[in-house]
């Protein structure tokens, strides 16, 4: 019987220290690589810092330590490498905001030419660099099927510059450039870009979405991506306490609620076809996810929705649930 789940262990906990070593996440293992080490300057509760550590640690494990990381400009770059310090314990390069995929292509080309194909290349950036300014380079890297794993840490706005709207900002969200005023407060409906689906349209070997709420699942997707060659794309939802207006302790919970309400579907696709979507274990209304975040506070008054915008958000979630068939029981074994 082959286990087809991305999270084969079916557990959310990262340590599971009562279980055997084989069930432990890389994050819980005694020899965790700790690629993004302590002392960096991320905010308390930063989802991106967490996501990057989980992803790069897993990639390092998968590649037996032979990793070069290419980082786009953004929070992750700024908080990890203020000269003369660096929090990275792996070969790491930052060039510009919009060129990380192209730089990664160059690194991979160099490794190929030098006969060092065992050295793997991981590029990473936030949603601004991925879905907006670096999108041309990302599409080029996908189209050429360059041997790069690109990871987008999506916190749904330009957080490093002070919470401005990106093409990954959801409708109604308050940002500094989509203030909650006027006839359609916050970010407007009918806009935005779904980069995982666009990545699939490039027919690249592997596309997956994940969040920082399920470490086992995220790590499993990194391992799967690292078992393949060519262009691979991982889109990780990483809540941002600053931009989302949420308590730092809620980061993991919000990432989980985003999945459970259907607004952020977890799925995998190979060569342009969805191969698996993770069933929602405990479905919740979008209200449960939106209410704890101040960026959506204007949707409610006295705890009640002020207009139909909450219902429209629910429609978006329902459309995802239907499109990816997210309800029902997981078919764990085939």
């Amino acid at each position, binding site marked *: 019987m082959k286990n087809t789940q991305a999270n084969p262990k079916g557990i959310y906990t990262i340590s599971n220290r009562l279980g055997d070593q084989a069930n432990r996440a890389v994050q819980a293992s005694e020899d965790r690589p700790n690629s993004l080490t302590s002392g960096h300057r991320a905010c308390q509760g930063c989802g991106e810092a967490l996501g990057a550590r989980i992803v790069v640690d897993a990639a390092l494990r998968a590649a037996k330590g032979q990793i070069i990381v290419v980082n786009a400009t953004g929070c992750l770059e700024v908080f990890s490498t203020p*000269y003369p310090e*660096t929090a990275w314990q792996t070969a790491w*390069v930052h060039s510009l905001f919009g060129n990380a995929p192209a730089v990664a292509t*160059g690194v991979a080309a*160099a490794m190929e030419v*030098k006969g060092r194909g065992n050295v793997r290349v991981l590029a990473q950036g936030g949603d601004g660099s991925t879905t907006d300014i670096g999108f041309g380079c990302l599409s080029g890297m996908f189209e050429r099927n360059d041997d790069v794993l690109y990871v987008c840490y999506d916190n749904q706005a330009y957080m490093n510059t002070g919470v401005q709207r990106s093409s990954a900002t959801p409708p109604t969200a308050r940002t500094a450039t989509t203030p909650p005023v006027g006839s359609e407060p916050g970010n407007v409906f009918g806009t935005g870009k779904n980069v995982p689906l666009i990545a699939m349209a490039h027919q690249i070997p592997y596309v997956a979405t994940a969040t920082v709420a399920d470490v086992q699942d995220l790590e499993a997707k990194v391992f799967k991506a690292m078992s393949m060659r060519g262009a691979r794309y991982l889109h990780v939802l990483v809540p941002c306490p600053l931009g989302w207006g949420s308590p730092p302790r809620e980061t993991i919970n919000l990432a989980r609620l985003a999945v459970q309400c259907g607004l952020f579907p977890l799925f995998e696709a190979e060569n342009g076809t969805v191969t698996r979507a993770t069933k929602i274990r405990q479905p919740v209304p979008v209200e449960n996810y939106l209410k704890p975040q101040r960026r959506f506070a204007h949707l409610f008054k006295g705890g009640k929705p002020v207009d139909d915008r909450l219902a429209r958000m629910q429609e978006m979630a329902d459309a995802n649930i239907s499109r990816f068939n997210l309800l029902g029981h997981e078919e764990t074994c085939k």
Partner: protein
Amino acid sequence: MLKQVEGSHAVAEAVALCRPEVICAYPITPQTHIVEGLGELVKAGHIKDCKYINVESEFAALSVAIGSSAAGARSYTATSSQGLLFMAEAVYNASGLGLPIVMTLGNRAIGAPLNIWNDHSDAMSLRDAGWIQLFAENNQEAIDLHIQAFRIAEDISCPVMVCVDGFILTHAVEQVDVPDQKQVDAYLPAFVPAVVLDPKAPASVGALVGPEAFTEVRYLDHKKQLRAFDAIDRASTAFKSVFGREAGGFIRSYHTKDAETVIVAMGSVIGTLKDMIDEKRKQGHKIGLVSICTFRPFPTAEVGAALKDAKHVIVLEKSLASGQGGVLAAHVRAGLHEAIPLTTLIAGLGGRPIPKNALSEFVEKIGIPSSDELHFLDLKQDIVDGELKKTEEERNARLRNGAARGR
């Protein structure tokens, strides 16, 4: 080996002889034939262990080269004009990271209005981006400068832009001496990067630097440019001993010894100027030429010394800083004794031919002026005057119209 080839192909062959490991290609006129030539050489197996990547933009072209160079591969790309501007952010980044990338710039005007023909506006627009900029006089020098460029770049970990006049050189078929592989191998050692991305010795490259250290970083960039003088000197001296001919260096003087009027210029127009000077010399005119091969770092002292006995300096240049005047002229002025008048002659913009006769007439007419002047060769004054008049009339009409409508 002597060959009769197009300039672009000559450059492609020269780059191939330098054993590049990563070549990033994106088409833009007039540089395109260079990357086409290289693509064929790689695909046919004439360049071994080289990855040729067709990218989606010039921004990506240089970004890929940044990645491959940072990972220790000898990296090359080529562009022109709008392409250079589209990659401008990466141009600064490559030098800031100290990556010895070599890039050919097939010099071309910048729009609007759209214009695909030759001038030096593109190179001048990024003159302060921390790259070494070399200008080729002819296709032989285009070959020779590319071979030197890799050596200079890797010597001091600084990117080098080799400027080759679009069409005039890139598309001209000339006889050139293409060196053999043994010679180039003897001249150009294997690339040993100063800093390299390697999991075996993890380094963080490209940190955030705040006000506490940024001035020092920029100061060191300036020092590196000054050190480049030595590297350029070493490269051209060694070049002569290996290949037996002169190429590169900072400047070259032609009949300047007794010259009263000295013309300063760079790029392919040097050939026309030499012909003009030869003719004028025969007629008894004391005229000479200083050609600039290295524009960045700018050899201010050398230029000043070469011009110290002149009575009048004419800087002929294919670029214009709107609202200011000549770019090269401002550089030359900095090294020139204040008592020597300098005439800026803007010529060849957007591919306008620079005929020998027009130059000769200009030199004749201007004589030795008493102060600095700015001129445009062959400017069609009637068209300009008509346009100025029309613009003024339209502006007045617009203002009257606006005033009549109120708010």
